[in-house]
């Protein structure tokens, strides 16, 4: 947040008319954060390391563990995601069958990774536009790279809000499974005592790498 102060640079202006101002003065005054650009930049250039390293470790983990199979959208996911959305909005009664993650989750969790890579690339393109001139070129020039970087940040905020709302709606048992990596499902009461089958083990990324809770919380602070 600190880095957006100054000159009202962040607005949607078309032909000299400002349609929307992302960070008007009252916003900054209310939060008591004007004139802290340098502080914001200092935080930014430290936390970018955590952001990048965390992202690399997470991607490596999903590849090595094979978890990526659960996360990457399938061909049917794009159609199913729409049904999931309708279901979640209580417009439709049934949701399409799913594995660990539903179609909408697959799209969201893959998109956030692509966005993260996008943030690193556009970030480098703005940070060192002369030295990484090829990245700047790839991002459509310095000015456009800046816009992309900003839009991606808005995307994280959007993701974060939806994500937290969904976690709350999904309830405690779901949250518990995010932390512990499994969820206990009691199927029909066992008839014979020897059938040890009540545990459905769902190997989840271990705490440190579960994408939502960790990354978003810490990394978004300085922005």
């Amino acid at each position: 947040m600190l880095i957006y102060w100054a000159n009202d640079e962040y607005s949607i202006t078309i032909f000299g008319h400002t349609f929307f101002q992302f960070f008007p003065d009252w916003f900054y005054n209310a939060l008591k954060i004007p004139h802290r650009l340098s502080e914001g930049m200092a935080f930014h250039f430290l936390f970018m390391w955590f952001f990048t390293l965390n992202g690399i470790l997470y991607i490596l983990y999903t590849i090595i563990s094979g978890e990526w199979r659960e996360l990457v959208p399938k061909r049917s996911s794009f159609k199913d995601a729409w049904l999931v959305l309708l279901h979640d909005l209580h417009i439709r009664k049934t949701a399409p069958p799913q594995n660990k993650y539903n179609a909408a989750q697959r799209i969201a969790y893959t998109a956030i990774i692509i966005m993260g890579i996008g943030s690193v690339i556009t970030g480098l393109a703005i940070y060192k536009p002369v030295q990484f001139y090829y990245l700047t070129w790839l991002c459509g020039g310095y000015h456009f790279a800046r816009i992309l970087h900003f839009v991606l940040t808005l995307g994280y905020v959007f993701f974060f809000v939806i994500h937290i709302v969904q976690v709350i709606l999904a309830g405690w048992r779901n949250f518990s499974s995010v932390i512990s990596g499994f969820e206990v499902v009691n199927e029909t009461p066992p008839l014979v005592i020897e059938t040890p089958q009540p545990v459905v083990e769902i190997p989840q990324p271990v705490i440190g790498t579960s994408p939502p809770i960790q990354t978003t919380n810490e990394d978004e602070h300085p922005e």
Partner: protein
Amino acid sequence: MSTPNKKEKKELTVEQKITRRTFISFSAFTVLAVGAVEGWRWLYKSPKEAAGITAGTRVPLRRALNKTELFFRRLVFSENHLVKTYPKSMAAKRVRVNADIGIEAQNKFDPATWKLQVIKKGGEVLQITLQELMILPKTEIIYDFKCVEGWDQISHWAGVKFSDFIKHYQLDDYAKMQFVGMETPDQGYYIGIDMPSAMHPQTLLAYEVNDKLLPLQHGAPLRLIIPVKYGIKNLKRIGTIAFSNTRPRDYWAEQGYDYYSGL
């Protein structure tokens, strides 16, 4: 593991396993969460650096800024990486004026009597007039001027290449030092530049904007145009130039900004 232990493990019931795994993972989660919160708190409350060449930011953050900048400099900085240039038609007609620190209008200044002062070893001062500089080969650049506050503008400047200036006045020995410092005549604004950036082929001592002599608000009679740095390093109205092996003082580095601010 010893045998009795193994035996014990086997005897764990499903419920016990569940409790155990849940306990372990929630403990780990709590430890990490508390660690993250405490780490943030430690960082946020860490003391400000002692005021010196740099000031105004937290000690760990300053260390991170310096290390990060040097990391990227070693990794990718090259004199051969040139700033992208544009055709003249794209240059802004009205060039943005963002600040007047060190050149405030209420302070009387006469460009006609101005001389550039280059401070040499042993207190010797080289005095150079604008006319003398204008005899040297003129270099033009039309590039995207970038401000740390988030705006950028394509603008058209012309002047003497800093490296040409060094050669012409036989300052090559000075250019082997690590830094160059520049200050306004009233010493109200001052910058420090690492030598590789100063000697970059696109760094100019500029006296023209849009083919006309600089107006006062753009730093008449002579200003620095250094495309490999943010705007804050593009000092207006150069009074003195000095060389050193330690970092010269820098106005914005004292206000918490990165000392190098390189692009």
